[in-house]
């Protein structure tokens, strides 16, 4: 995450990003800047915005639509961005020397994702999930992200090449579930 304040990430001059028929969009939306710096281009909306109900800039709105569709689920399940964030979260939990066991790692994950302690039911369910998954998943390649042509940034954040072990893999799955959960996606 690039925390730079201000400025523009448009790579084209004024009007250069407006295309008549969307056949040649000049914008890549590739930057790991905060979402507020993402350009809003009327005829070529940023995919993440469009997927998650950003208001349409062509018409006026009295309220923001809020939809629940399979695309959003597919995004949470299969987007490299989500998997990559889950992988990093899992890595930080596994490397944290202050966390003595898996129960406390689960607790920390809940604090990070939901800003609340995990319940005993949730810890128990999480442990069972990890216990079942770790022996069967095997190692995995690291998720490649960001990717300048997809949802990711243009190289603002780096990612390591290589592989992760079965334990990290199982934890990546667990963290992905937390990120895909209603509690993470919705503001209560």
């Amino acid at each position, binding site marked *: 995450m690039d925390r730079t304040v201000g400025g523009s990430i448009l790579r084209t001059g004024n009007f250069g990003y407006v295309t008549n028929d*969307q056949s040649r*969009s000049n914008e890549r939306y590739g930057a790991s800047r905060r979402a507020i710096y993402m350009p809003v281009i009327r005829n070529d909306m940023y995919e993440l915005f469009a997927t998650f109900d950003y208001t349409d800039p*062509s018409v006026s709105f009295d309220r923001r*639509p*809020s939809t*629940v569709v399979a695309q959003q689920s*597919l995004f949470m399940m299969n987007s490299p961005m989500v998997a990559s964030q889950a992988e990093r979260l899992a890595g930080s939990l596994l490397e944290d020397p202050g966390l003595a066991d898996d129960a406390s790692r689960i607790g920390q994950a809940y604090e990070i994702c939901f800003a609340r302690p995990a*319940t005993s039911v*949730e810890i128990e369910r999480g442990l069972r999930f990890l216990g079942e998954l770790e022996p069967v998943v095997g190692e995995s390649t690291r998720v490649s992200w960001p990717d300048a042509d997809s949802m990711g940034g243009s190289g603002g954040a780096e990612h390591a090449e290589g592989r992760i072990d079965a334990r990290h893999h199982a934890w990546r799955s667990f963290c992905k579930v*937390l990120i895909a959960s209603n509690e993470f996606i919705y503001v209560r």
Partner: protein
Amino acid sequence: MSDFCGIRPNHSRRDMLKQCCGGFGAVAMAGLLADEAKADELLSRPGKIDPFTRGPLAVRHPHFAPRAKRVIFLFMHGGPSQVDTFDYKPKLQADHGKELPFAKPRVQFAKTGSLMASPYKWKQHGGSGQWVSEIFPETAKVVDDLCFIKSLHGSNPAHGAALLKIHTGSENFVRPSMGSWITYGLGSENRDLPGFVTICPTLGHGGVNNYSSAFLPAAYHGTAIGHAGVKASQARFEHMTAMGDAGVQRAELDLLKELNQLGIEEHGPNAALEGRIETFELAFRMQGVAPEVMDLGNETKATKQMYGLDDSVTENFGRQCLLARRFSERGVRFVQCTHSYKWDQHGNLEAAHRNNAREVDTGIAALIMDLKNRGMLEETLVIWGGEFGRTPVAQDGNGRDHNPHGFTMWMAGGGVKPGFSYGATDEYGFYALEDKVHVHDLHATILALLGVDHERLTYRDAGRDFRLTDVAGRVVSEIFA
């Protein structure tokens, strides 16, 4: 995402389970026993469909015998000119360069000049003798299957508002799309695919609001494949390829479902949150089914050629048309193909309209013939048209301005009269004059062809019942076969 405006958490799965003291068994029985009369009654009661009783996409029975089961909408974004395609005006051809002898609309989009004849040659085609300009030679061959409406009129001369009007019936408020209303009214014949699919939809001029479910339950939202910025051959349901092992993903989804249900138990019923649990299951099934639909590998060479896939000009829209047939075959209720923002010729009309037509003509004709050969045309309603037409008077010498006051659309199959033409514009093709058909009337007619009464298909939101046709709409039964 801080509120779930418009989605009313009035019937949750928990409420239903409480009411059905037999639990899941009773629910299953209730589903099996829901007879047609009950479904009819549910459908006719405003806003009383419980989307969770039989699933939001469960097939529901229409109000009366349907003529069509499903719709394919071929949308020509930008506004194709009626007087250069299907609405032949000899007087316009004769009076080129003269002033329009009657008043132009009070509100115009751009400044226009004198009358401009169509630069194209016109001929009558087929046994029905319909006029088609030379830029649609392939469509001209299937003209005996088409039912023209030449007296359409809308309300707004700007693209954004006109797109919203044609798709949702409302140019100034966020309302459910026609495909959403239809899927809400009738459900989907295929539970593993969305009921409403839109191929390469435009991102501008209302964008997602042209296929959004607005206040209808989210299951009726149009599912986009690609968008206008990508080629049809590259268009995919986003993130459709399962990441990693399917077994691992199944375990993840099971955990996710349990955690989400824990949340719902703690915080109470919420249709949107429960809907999201359903969409993960739909997404999981789609990963298996959708790639097969998108794969044209088992189509014959002849079929691919017929749709123009071997020609770089016709390939893109031809592929959309072929995909539309494949989705329709599998029971998707409403499929839209979009020829994106091409038809807006304020200038350079002669070359650009010719090129636009060339891009879509082969695919359109192939779709009609293919549906017919497969016996699907009679129950599939194909609709062709743009958000408005264009002026018979010139803009910048060789272009035409937007014209919502009179334009042409056509339908095929689905219980409409083949080789028929309804309504007429004035002698220059500017204003709809005879048997006028407003966009609301078009919507009412489409619903009626599907067996749905546009006055009874309602949904209560913000204190009142809403319809696709608002408080208007006349069923143009004159075009029914």
